[in-house]
């Protein structure tokens, strides 16, 4: 990453039972992706309230991924 280029911060809400496991598997398979994602493990995507998403934007997140 160059110093000046825009690097987004992405908050990823990941369901423990699917997306989180898939992200682990991506590691086992050594898939490579940009280091911009900050994963937050949740127990079900149904628990992601709009408040979490708004709060993340408020705090300065550039993107949000909900995986479930």
């Amino acid at each position: 990453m160059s110093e000046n280029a825009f690097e987004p911060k992405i908050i990823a809400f990941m369901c423990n039972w699917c997306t989180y496991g898939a992200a682990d598997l991506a590691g086992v398979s050594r898939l490579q992706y940009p280091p911009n994602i900050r994963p937050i493990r949740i127990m079900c995507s149904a628990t992601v309230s709009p408040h979490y998403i708004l709060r993340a934007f408020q705090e300065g997140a550039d993107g949000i991924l909900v995986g479930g």
Partner: protein
Amino acid sequence: MCGEDGNFEVKAIRYPRYIDMEKCIACGLCAEKCPKKVVDEFELGLAQRKAAYVKYAQAVPLKYTIDPKNCIYLIKGKCRVCEKFCPAGAVNFHDTPKEFIIKVGAIILASGCEVYDPATHDIFGYGRSPNILTSLEFERILSSSGPFGGNLVCPSDKREPQKIAWLQCVGSRDEHPGAKGYCSSVCCTYAIKEAMLAKEHSKGPLDAAIFYMDVRTHGKGFERYYNRGMDEYGIRFIKSRVTRIIPLEDSDKQLIRYIDNTGGRLEEAFDMVVLSVGLGVSKQAINLASKLGIELDRNNFVVTSSFEPVRTSRQGVYVCGNFESPKDIPQSVIEASAAAGVAASRLAEARWTMTKIQKTPEQIDVHDEPPRIGVFICRCGTNIAGVVDVPAVVAYAKTLPYVVHADENMFSCSQDTQDHMTRLVKEKGLNRLVVSACTPKTHEPLFQETLTNAGINKYLFEMANIRNQCAWVHSQTPREATEKAKELTRMAVAKVTLHHPLTELELEMNPRALVIGGGIAGMTAAWKLAEQGYFTYLIEKNGSLGGHARQLQETWRSEDVQKNLSKLIDAIRSNNKIEVHLNTRVKAVDGFVGNFKTIIEKDGQEEVLVHGVTIIASGAAEFKPDQYLYGRDPRVMTGLELDQRLIENTLFLKREIESVVFIQCVGSRIPKRPYCSKVCCTHSLKNALKLKELNPAMDVFILYRDMRSYGLREDLYRQARGKGIHILRYDFDRGLEVETVKESLRIRFTDTSLRRKMEIRPDLLILATAIVAPKENPLARLYKVALNDDGFFVEAHVKLRPVDCATDGIFICGLAHAPKPIDESIAQAQAAAARAATYLAKDSIRVGGVVSHIDSTCCSGCKGCINVCPYGAIFFDDENRRAAVNPALCKGCGACAAACPSEAAVLMGFSKDQLYAQIKSAIVA
């Protein structure tokens, strides 16, 4: 193997894997460095692996192995590269085969099946073009962890195919040498699935065609799936016999020559051809059976009976899955539970005789102490440390609020590190821990155990995933990976700071069961529970036990239903652990798993039954149609009514019968009822053969849409054709008329092969009518369990939990779940009893931990949470007008927390404050 039922001794050999499973950390370095490439069996030859390998990325436990047939060192005595690079010292070339003896009371065979090898038959062209594949190979192509990363491509040149054909019944329903005469039962549905997935994976428009004889989507929900495949996905279904597949050299396409429904010879070229290969028994399984002295049938499947579907010919040895007959995942899982349950019944006396109880130290109360956090950063050999600057992360962790200790470990999961952590907790008075290492999915329980052993509540813990989700996936950008590892650690520290100790409660388990429904499924479930030693109430709404089985003469395997039914009723009646209530209905239900209170009503009297689990086996009914002169002409009757006359021997009393017509799918597979009733094709074939046996001169016709004599039932279809029974496919869209013409019955329909109007004037018309769920089913409401669109009960998971309801402690079996024949109802009842026993065997159940809690001072009583809870775990306290969570039923999904407008509902350990802290610390340093 030697010994006998209840006391077997099995000698087994464990082959060497040359990697110590205790030491292997699954970093994959051995496979990366191994110089030897070999064909990957798991990818069916479509990819290569190394001689040091893991079979597939999702393997559990995730431990590597060395293949001695290909390892250069083990063959030639030189190399040992893996040993040199393994950071954990796990490679052990001195590993040897180890023989050991297992002493057991029962044995369950679950050795599975193998798929048919289409190379045996040259008409399929298999092996002559890389673009002619088996269905299993195609599964690998579709798989995102497969050889082409889930991209739909032709193996020959990696271009995306525009046309794919599936060929059904490859090696199944085929009496030629090398093939199997039976139906493999699963291929129609999996071909539809593959075609649908292929269309989803394809970037351009994909033409998918399935060449079939009969579409056999007989499982629960499968007919709807078939309809979706046709209507929504536009899959072409071509009823045909394929005569040859010819790889075209000039165009890299495959030419399929076939005879269509009307006998016309046609051909069409495809980019790719998928052979829907059937299932069979492997040579190893046959050897195993002969070693154990188990009887096999002519197709090498284990011989069982409809009434004891998982019992083999040898006492104490049971079978489940495809070694019994070809079947899909749900049925295999049902049989697995059934076999476990039947074995458990046999061994009921020995239960708890070999149990050891683990002792844990007293928990230290830390709830009002300020957080004192210990952070441990794992190097994981070089897995993390090779990318992430671990000392930098440690130094950073030390600057975070409330952190009183931070250091690094070579392997955080090793026993000496656990001891080190326990010591530090005591020395430094730590009351919260963070481990930045691999994934909590595999290692959270291990570290939680360390906390428990150190006297700290195990929920005062967080993991930061800096291996799988950081070092491994950002290996090219170590600087950014180090930053991310710091931030992930910071997020975990922020969250653990807000953790509270969570409590788990013990709730007493009432060891009695209630079974609702006195049919064959309900009785079997009650009997199996009683055999395991659990007192069972069996309630039946009618005045006698037996249900629909009372009207059935024989199973498809010619077993006498009435004789077996009487035996079962006697077993129920003579068992003092079963209390039967006839003419009884459920009036009201209170409580939950471990402690249900069911109020039953019998002759106007009410009684309260207290029980720990509930099995619903309330059945279904035979559809009584309002068409084809049913109910208006005595010569028209349903399949069950014919059975009744055969049992009573009253069919021929009133008149001569020279010809009989069976009409299939009456009320099934129609827009109003888009499901297959599963039993009717077999039932009609069976009864047609019975009638032929009674009078060989009789003309018997079966008018069908798709003949679904699935699995080994295909034998009946073949026999029926051999006996001269006329099996004709009618054009469903053009309809079928039944009238009375000058006192004789007249049936008119269009035959799809001849494309002509046909007319039959039979003496008797049998309607193979649907199995229908009751219009109103109060049990669903009373026990808070869901019904599907067709009125059958919904299981917790179609494949993995096929007899459990989503609500804990409630199980389903028999026709209440879906249409099915006797053997499958019995297997499911045995499975339900086995699943119920997993609760009944406990004195108490532990509840709590990561569950929701509703703060009653904030709750406005809007009931929003009750509407979204999928587990029926939230109830409404009418007195206080507040909602409350039953921790025994809560699964900790947190849907209520998201739905609550007052933020009164909180998922413990995942509170909004914790989530906000994580969000904040992810972004702001």
